[in-house]
């Protein structure tokens, strides 16, 4: 390794190397100042009793972690985060794949439909979260009104401790646009010959899907799932605007728990511990997925 690093290289290669580092310099600075530094900083802070001012900052060892693990709300928020993440990722990925397959059909007007399906993804934010409060309104909301027309008495959605998490999952289904496009690109990358060969072997639509589409698409699906898990962990806007972690603690997710500890109770040390746990949990989940991925992701040889 060292030998390779000190191996003499030509002046032109050296110049190219200098330009490489010059070009990535802004990103490198950002990496150190805004990412790597903070991640280490937060680890340090999670061992202190820091509140909002730095005066009287004490090293408390694992005290914050002990406090966290003894706090029932913390475990509730872990459970809620996992519930919403699994729901969002499973349903969202299936739905995105379904839409991508639809958009991959050879019918006129596809660019139009692609735009329509993508639309809610670009407008996601406070404005649309506000609309969803109104859609989920138990009395005058359009959702329960539609259900009533079908003879179903709808639940109270975001005002119900049971339904608030499904509500958030339903809402997230509308923002699968990016995944849909990534999967669509993946579908279009599958060589036609494979389908033709399957047809010659007498494969039906389902067999073609199960034996050609899914294996060929599995690397893209894997990518989509990894990204979706990460995105689901960071879902703050909807919680803040629509539920504020409620009713009760039924939509209190880790990010909300972090926010409350840091900027409502000013328990910065505890909040730092939460941040570090979010980071570890996400890394752990990603690691597990890579491990499982070895079994189901098919890479062309």
């Amino acid at each position, binding site marked *: 390794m060292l030998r390779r690093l000190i191996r003499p290289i030509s002046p032109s290669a050296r110049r190219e190397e200098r330009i490489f580092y010059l070009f990535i310099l802004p990103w490198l600075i950002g990496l150190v100042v805004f990412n790597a530094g903070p991640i280490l900083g*937060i680890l340090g802070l999670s061992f202190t009793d820091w509140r909002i001012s730095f005066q009287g900052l004490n090293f408390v060892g694992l005290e914050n972690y002990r406090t966290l693990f003894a706090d029932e709300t913390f475990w509730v928020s872990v459970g809620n985060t996992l519930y919403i993440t699994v729901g969002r990722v499973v349903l969202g990925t299936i739905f995105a794949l379904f839409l991508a397959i639809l958009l991959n059909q050879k019918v006129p007007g596809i*660019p139009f439909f692609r735009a329509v399906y993508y639309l809610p993804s670009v407008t996601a934010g406070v404005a649309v979260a506000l609309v969803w409060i109104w859609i989920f309104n138990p009395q005058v909301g359009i959702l329960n009104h539609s259900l009533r027309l079908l003879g179903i008495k709808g639940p109270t959605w975001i005002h119900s401790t049971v339904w608030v998490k499904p509500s958030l999952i339903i809402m997230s289904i509308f923002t699968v646009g990016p995944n849909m496009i990534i999967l669509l690109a993946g579908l279009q990358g599958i060589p036609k010959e494979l389908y033709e060969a399957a047809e010659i072997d007498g494969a039906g639509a389902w067999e073609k899907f199960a034996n050609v589409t899914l294996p060929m698409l599995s690397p893209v699906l894997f990518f989509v799932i990894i990204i979706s898990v990460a995105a689901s962990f960071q879902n703050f806007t909807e919680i803040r605007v629509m539920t504020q972690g409620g009713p009760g603690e039924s939509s209190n997710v880790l990010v909300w728990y972090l926010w409350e500890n840091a900027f409502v109770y000013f328990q910065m040390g505890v909040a730092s511990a939460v941040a570090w746990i979010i980071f570890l949990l996400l890394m752990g989940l990603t690691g597990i997925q890579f491990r499982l991925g070895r079994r189901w992701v098919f890479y062309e040889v």
Partner: protein
Amino acid sequence: MTHPPVAQEPRKAKGDAAWYRSIKGRRALAVLLTFALLIPLGILFVVPFFVMMSTALKTKPQIFQFPPSLIPDPIVWQNFPDGWYGYGIIDFTNCTWNSLKITVNNIVGNLVSCTLAAYAFARLKARGKNIFFGILLATMLLPNEAVLIPQYVLFRILGWNDTHLPLMVPPWFGWPFFIFLLRQFFLTIPEELVDAAKIDGAGHARILLQIFIPLSKPALATLAIFAFVGNWNNFFGPLLYLRTPEIQTLPVCLVQYQGAYGNTDWNLMMAVATITVIPVLLLFIFGQRYFVEGIATSGVKR
């Protein structure tokens, strides 16, 4: 984080041998079935907009009417100015300027810093490159919230709290996802073009400016649109760093409005919400056309 899609055009049916080989009748049925799914789903996806628009145009008694009506009657256009100027407590015009200023700065910052890094990762040879690329991929997954508190501390030490700086400076230092996507696009630009330019004596700065950037317009436009959407909708950052009402951005202003009048003036709030969504809608509609054009020009990919 919303992540940018990879824009791509579906293949044209024309000239597709399999199309003609299949039986016409079965084909027609398949088309019909596809539309039977495409259209209801399309309607479903515009429901939130429809609700927003129709609520924005209703009178106050009508929004609480039971059973709810979908079509406003009468149509109250006055809700738009009434909502915007509201009760004079929230200055939406000023909020819009703040949002616009931050968004434009961040698009430019992101494009400049990400283009440089993407070019380096796609086209330059250097020792240690693979290690840094690995780090880049890993940071794509780093949750913003995990680094939020130390960033907050950092900006407080710098005295940047309650200014736009914490929102406007970091975009000049790259965004891992954009760097990655742009690098993927840069990799598709033929090596021969670069070699030809090198023979002509062009340096890397010139190759980047005169070959890569012009050829990557669709990719850059796509990234610009994502940066616009992400920054325009950004809620967490402004909520965290900004205190003074005069420097607040649109999403936070909307939430303040919700806090003040949220339980009664839904029609006015939806009117303001509609206005805030319009720039994103326009850009998206414009961008759609750009995607399509971009695919047409990407014949160079082969």
